[in-house]
């Protein structure tokens, strides 16, 4: 079933009784050519591009919970491509371009809203760093715009530009950045993949990898064993747990990242704003709530909930630039588990085990990467060669000294 204006009008006249399920809830077959472990945004996007762009068939996505219950439903919905390093920026720019055409591609309203992202800076040194970053973005075909305090004031009059400790000296804007309805990304990819014949199997947890003579030939699950041609792990947050079933240790620690949403307000913040002197970023959802977040809690965790010191830290950062947040009440807060890698960048690569592939290490930047991650992973699965924008995301970059460390923090995952 295709969505169209005609279909909406005709269903409205018939009491909305003719809508189908968005995707088929498949039961597992005994064999697939491609088994994607993890039905998050990245796994569903991988399945979709594998079927659509690379013409592959007999694909399954297996998910231990329900679609949209993991990190694809726990992020703060921001899309942007304001990275600096060569290994990263072309990949994220590809992702932003895919976001721009996503709804037409999927025939699904994912509420892609290019409302712009603004990174504030507060010191002269930070201005220099942001100019450098903006130039790197322009060199890679992305858009970047350095704004003065007066330009920022005209769009965001409520920002505290005169704060004694962190005065706002300007900002780097990416006007093509913005937000996307995150659940709709999972649903849209699931629907489009399902229409191409991909089996989406929910409530099916992988309990083991079937490895014979250094070759992965299938998975065991809570719904029985499934044989597979190529097995693709795509479970960022729990990557270490799944790959431990293959006896692999990863350059990854799992950390909890909290996010927050306030009570609903009338339109206040037109775009996405980030604080440059602490870690705080904020946007307003279409329902009216302010969606914001900050640092990870900083210790290994699989708990999907965090602790109060980070709540305090995030709110302090918010108050520094948005004093009008002070009277706002918090509606909800939650946590998601991040694959924090050793250099802050992801991995999309083959593993030393034949027919076993890996996609993970997204740190807290996985959502914006969803389309490109899916496309590049599908490319790797289909062709056994890395996509041209993802050649740097290798396992062996650590031993070879080819880290992609945007923040320059070294091998300390909780600082990325």
């Amino acid at each position, binding site marked *: 079933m295709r969505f169209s204006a005609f279909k909406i009008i005709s269903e409205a006249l018939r009491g909305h009784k003719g809508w189908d399920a968005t995707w088929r809830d498949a039961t597992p077959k005994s064999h697939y050519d491609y088994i994607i472990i993890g039905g998050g945004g990245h796994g569903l996007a991988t399945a979709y591009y594998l079927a659509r762009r690379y013409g592959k068939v007999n694909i399954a996505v297996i998910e231990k919970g329900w679609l949209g219950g993991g990190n694809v439903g726990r992020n703060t919905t921001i899309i942007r491509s304001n990275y600096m390093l060569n290994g990263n920026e072309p990949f994220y720019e590809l992702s932003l371009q895919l976001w721009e055409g996503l709804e037409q591609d999927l025939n699904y309203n994912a509420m892609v809203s290019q409302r712009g992202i603004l990174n504030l800076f507060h010191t002269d040194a930070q201005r220099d760093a942001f100019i450098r970053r903006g130039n790197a973005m322009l060199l890679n075909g992305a858009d970047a715009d350095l704004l003065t305090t007066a330009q920022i004031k005209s769009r965001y009059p409520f920002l505290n530009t005169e704060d004694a400790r962190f005065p706002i000296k300007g900002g780097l804007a990416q006007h093509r950045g913005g937000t996307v309805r995150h659940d709709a990304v999972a649903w849209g990819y699931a629907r489009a993949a399902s229409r191409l014949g991909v089996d989406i199997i929910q409530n099916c947890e992988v309990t083991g990898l079937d490895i014979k003579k250094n070759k992965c030939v299938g998975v065991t699950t809570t719904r029985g064993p499934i044989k597979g041609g190529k097995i693709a792990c795509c479970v960022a947050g729990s990557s270490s747990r799944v790959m431990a079933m293959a006896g692999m240790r990863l350059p990854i620690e799992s950390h909890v990242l909290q996010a927050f949403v306030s009570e609903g307000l009338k339109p206040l913040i037109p775009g996405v704003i980030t604080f440059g002197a602490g870690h705080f970023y904020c946007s307003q959802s279409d329902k009216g709530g302010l969606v914001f977040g900050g640092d990870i809690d900083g210790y290994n*965790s699989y708990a999907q909930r965090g602790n109060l010191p980070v709540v305090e830290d995030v709110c302090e950062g918010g108050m520094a630039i948005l004093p009008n947040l002070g009277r706002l009440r918090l509606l909800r807060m939650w946590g998601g588990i991040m694959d924090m890698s050793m250099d802050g960048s992801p991995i999309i690569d083959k593993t030393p085990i034949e027919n076993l592939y890996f996609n993970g290490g997204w740190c807290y930047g996985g959502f914006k990467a969803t389309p490109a991650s899916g496309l590049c992973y599908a490319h790797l699965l289909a062709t056994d060669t890395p996509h041209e924008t993802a050649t740097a995301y290798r396992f062996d970059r*650590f031993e070879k000294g080819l880290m992609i460390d945007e923040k320059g923090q070294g091998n300390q995952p909780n600082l990325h």
Partner: protein
Amino acid sequence: MIINHPLLGPRDAAEFTYLGDASLIDRPDGMADNALPAFIDYGYLRDNNAGEHRELWFHEQGDRSWLVVTRHTVTHEITNVELASDVARKRGRSK
């Protein structure tokens, strides 16, 4: 989280900074034949299990001691706290 410091008693975890897996105490021998792979492993690979985890915390806003904390990564429950120097001494490492 509250970390029960062996010398100072219960302290807020916010006073501490976190380094990572307690196996980081066991720095490989740089002169050994397998030093290169051993250091790649030491520097970049982690166990990262869901369950009991022994990890290094530094009491930065306190007595600046290093602790080995045994904590559950799913429940955050802390079951044991030792001074890292005691742990190393037990292995004949520090004096």
